[in-house]
């Protein structure tokens, strides 16, 4: 009876469902948006009774996480909003979560919301922790027990210091916030450029430099570990940031990894660096490294990676309801930010893998079976266009099966022998965000074809970050390889964190042109082909 009532209501209200609208020539995803480029929707997406209810409950859960963050220390949160420009951008989080899972239904939506909740949970916890202990805002009980990490250093090894807390320095002020609000980082980029930095350097690093010059990093800990991960501009901006940290009385220690991370020499070196970084922390904080604590977190990480390997097998089938941004954003947060430190993410993984296994058993076709192409997204993606994979699916039926950054370190870490654990950790840590395949030699980049074949993709979309010197340097070779291997291939121009250089609309245009001119296809949802979201979050 319940099913019939729901079905009756769904039928009555389906004219408000953008997916139905696009199927029936009555509009589409953009119909509910205002026409002024603001990206503000006039009403929530109607997804049918069950999905809309589920989505709304998930939305409420996110509100709960945010409320809990504020409730824990309302004064510091308010001070943080007053002090830091970037804190204001997090107000766009609701619009962000809605935007990235647009058009999701059924099991895709189930997983997306499980992931979305986990992401909001961990970010609110971490923001709350950082602001509560920010010396600039008065400090807290952990202020002197925190270690600043460059956000691209995989934090797993710090689990061996259970009485300390390692927090990424740049993630909140510059990195993840760019996912939420495309208009924040241009401010910091302008700060850096007005200081003299060339506009052709990587915009992520330029934004980090701007945060340093603007004195907008939270202040905590006695030590910051800077790094050369993932690439040249990262190394260079670290040298700027260290001056700001020094000014705040925080020591800087460069924790570097071999650039060529597939060699014995390189691995030996990274291992030695890891050993020295541990020694440095012991020295500065006066604590001993606790291998058992590391092993405990490493078990979490191994659990995560075992599931990850199984996920890849499922991704190779047409039945995976997990793909696109739901997969890559969660993976990025789980790998780069959590990195074995929080067992909650293991629970999330267990839940999601069950849904995936069931989907395979049921031969479930995601996105209502509308996928036309299976694409591997290669190269670092535009941070200011997080919902790009959602758009490709909704507009052209291009399912982004996996993203380059989701292939980060997945070797198992020994949980009994410290020496072997160090070797494993070094290898694991070398293959971090934007690094595993983007640097370290041609073979790493050229691995794209194997990945694409393994996951049964017919298309490779290669992010073309205009300021990435390393990836620029393989342009023609990749194009020639695509032809040789017979993949549909296109470059996707973007400027990583600067939405002004190549706006979202131009990114879409690259796909639109390829799909209509080269592939000769019609869009699934014509309202998504060309629209203005320049002013949106």
């Amino acid at each position: 009876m319940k099913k019939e009532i729901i079905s009756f209501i769904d039928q009555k209200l389906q004219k408000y469902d953008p997916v139905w609208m696009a199927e029936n020539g009555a509009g589409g995803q953009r119909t509910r948006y205002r026409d002024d480029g603001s990206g503000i929707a006039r009403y929530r997406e109607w997804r049918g009774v069950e999905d809309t209810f589920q989505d709304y409950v998930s939305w409420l859960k996110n509100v709960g996480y945010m409320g809990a963050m504020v409730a824990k220390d309302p004064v510091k949160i308010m001070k943080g909003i007053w002090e830091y420009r970037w804190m204001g951008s997090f107000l766009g989080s609701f619009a962000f979560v809605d935007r990235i899972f647009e058009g999701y239904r059924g099991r895709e939506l189930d997983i997306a919301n499980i992931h979305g909740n986990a992401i909001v949970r961990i970010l609110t916890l971490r923001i709350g922790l950082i602001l509560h202990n920010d010396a600039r805002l008065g400090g807290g009980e952990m202020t002197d027990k925190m270690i600043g990490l460059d956000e691209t250093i995989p934090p797993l090894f710090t689990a061996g210091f259970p009485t300390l807390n390692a927090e990424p320095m740049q993630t909140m002020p510059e990195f993840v916030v760019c996912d939420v609000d495309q208009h924040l980082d241009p401010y910091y980029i302008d700060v850096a450029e007005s200081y003299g930095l060339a506009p052709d350097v990587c915009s992520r690093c330029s934004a980090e430099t701007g945060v340093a010059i603007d004195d907008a990093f939270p202040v905590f800990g006695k030590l910051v570990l800077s790094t050369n991960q993932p690439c040249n501009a990262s190394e260079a901006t670290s040298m700027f940031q260290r001056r700001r940290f020094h000014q705040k009385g925080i020591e800087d220690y460069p924790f570097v990894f071999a650039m060529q991370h597939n060699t014995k020499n390189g691995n030996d070196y990274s291992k030695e660096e890891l050993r020295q970084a541990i020694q440095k922390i012991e020295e500065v904080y006066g604590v001993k490294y606790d291998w058992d604590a590391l092993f405990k977190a490493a078990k979490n990480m191994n659990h995560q990676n075992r599931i990850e390997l199984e996920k890849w097998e499922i991704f190779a089938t047409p039945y995976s309801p997990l793909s696109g941004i739901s997969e890559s954003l969660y993976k990025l947060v789980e790998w780069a930010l959590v990195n074995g430190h929080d067992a909650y993410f293991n629970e999330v993984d267990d839940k999601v893998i069950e849904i995936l296994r069931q989907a395979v058993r049921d031969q479930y076709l995601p996105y209502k079976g509308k996928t036309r192409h299976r694409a591997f997204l290669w190269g670092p993606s535009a941070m200011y266009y997080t919902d790009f994979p959602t758009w490709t699916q909704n507009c052209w039926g291009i399912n982004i099966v996996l993203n380059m950054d989701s292939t980060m370190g997945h070797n198992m870490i020994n949980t009994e022998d410290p020496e072997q654990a160090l070797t494993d950790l070094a290898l694991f840590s070398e293959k971090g965000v934007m690094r595993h395949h983007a640097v370290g030699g041609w073979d790493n980049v050229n691995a794209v074809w194997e990945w694409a074949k393994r996951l049964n993709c017919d298309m490779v979309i290669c992010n073309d970050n205009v300021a990435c010197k390393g990836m620029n340097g393989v342009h023609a070779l990749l194009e020639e390889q695509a032809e040789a291997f017979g993949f549909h291939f296109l470059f996707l121009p973007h400027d990583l964190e600067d939405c002004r250089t190549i706006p979202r609309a131009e990114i879409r245009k690259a796909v639109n042109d390829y799909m209509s001119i080269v592939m000769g296809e019609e869009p699934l949802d014509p309202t998504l082909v060309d629209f203005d979201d320049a002013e949106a979050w």
Partner: protein
Amino acid sequence: MHDLKYTLYFETLLEEPCNELVKQALEEGDIALGYNCYYIPETLLNLPGCFSSRLRAPNCSATPIGDYYLTNRNCPYTRAILERAVEGSYNYLSSLFGAEACSAMERMEEHFEQIAPVKHEPFVTTIIDAPLKSDQAALTYYRNELRDKVVAKVRELGVDTSDDALRAAIDDHNEVSRIITEIGDFRKLDNPPVTGYEFHLIQLVSEVCPHRLILPYLRETLEEIKARKPDATPAFRARVVLCGSEIDDPEFTKLLEFCGALVVADRYCFGSVPSREQIEILEGETPFEAITRHYLQTNLCARFMSEEKIDQRTDVLEALVKEYKADGVIVESMKFCEFWSYEKVLASHILSRERDIPTCQIEKDYTLTGAGQLRTRFQAFVEGLEIKKLEAAGKGVRS
């Protein structure tokens, strides 16, 4: 001053990578080993039967092939080198020993393997991973990389890489360095008998020609400079230290000097600081260990991240300013160079605001396009330096 006897000859040697002396050495049975970064010690390539050849792309005015492979948003030096490689300018080389000093350089070097532009048999390409610190772990890594990817390959090419051969290479390096340092030291005088342009020529020929063939010319030039009488009134209005990346075009120094700034010290990738310091074999060290330690210690690359190396960069500049009595520093960065873009801003900030040394930042292409704009910048900087000097002398000029 009258021209040096070999000025024109040196200019000619710099016109093409495979110049007259390179051809002569090849005819005499030597093999040429290419490299393009200070991370590759040239001393390891100047062994009996082979010689080092630092890659330049003189007169490269357009880079359509380089743009195709590396995009036109990449380092113009690397694009120019790849362009010249495809054009056949490096077909005399038996190797390219590269360093992953930066992404652009590494990608360019990869193309020497992937598209095989150098038509020479045999031809090997290797790329070492270059450390970012100078501590013991970094030194060990550097040594391992050089041992496995350079020395081993040189040996495979049939070259003697024994300790005796390396010791002879150190002697050769020290002799070239002694002469060049002696010539360079004349720039410390108030009215030097050698210009920055001439010194640039001398330094460059020592990097692109076989040492045994260029040494007689260098020795003779040193003697000539010793006896040379500078003009009674110096033609220059200011003395500057030039600092930056891949400056291998002496015309750039000439342009600067036409604007009235004598380049008294050259702290850039092709310059003599670092590169022309004496290599000392410490007690208990093998020649290989001495060479690798020396090159890591003296390396001033903008990519080093450890505190002592970051400080070393600005400390060296400050010391050069004092030693060569420079009035200011010009910090250059190549377009699309990430390291030098950051270093330029940081060094300028430290030098001008914390150490009170006037500094001028410029960004340039590999070739001398935009010379007009550069001239304007240099002229303004020189005028600024002059005003400062007048102010300091109490001549009533107010800024």
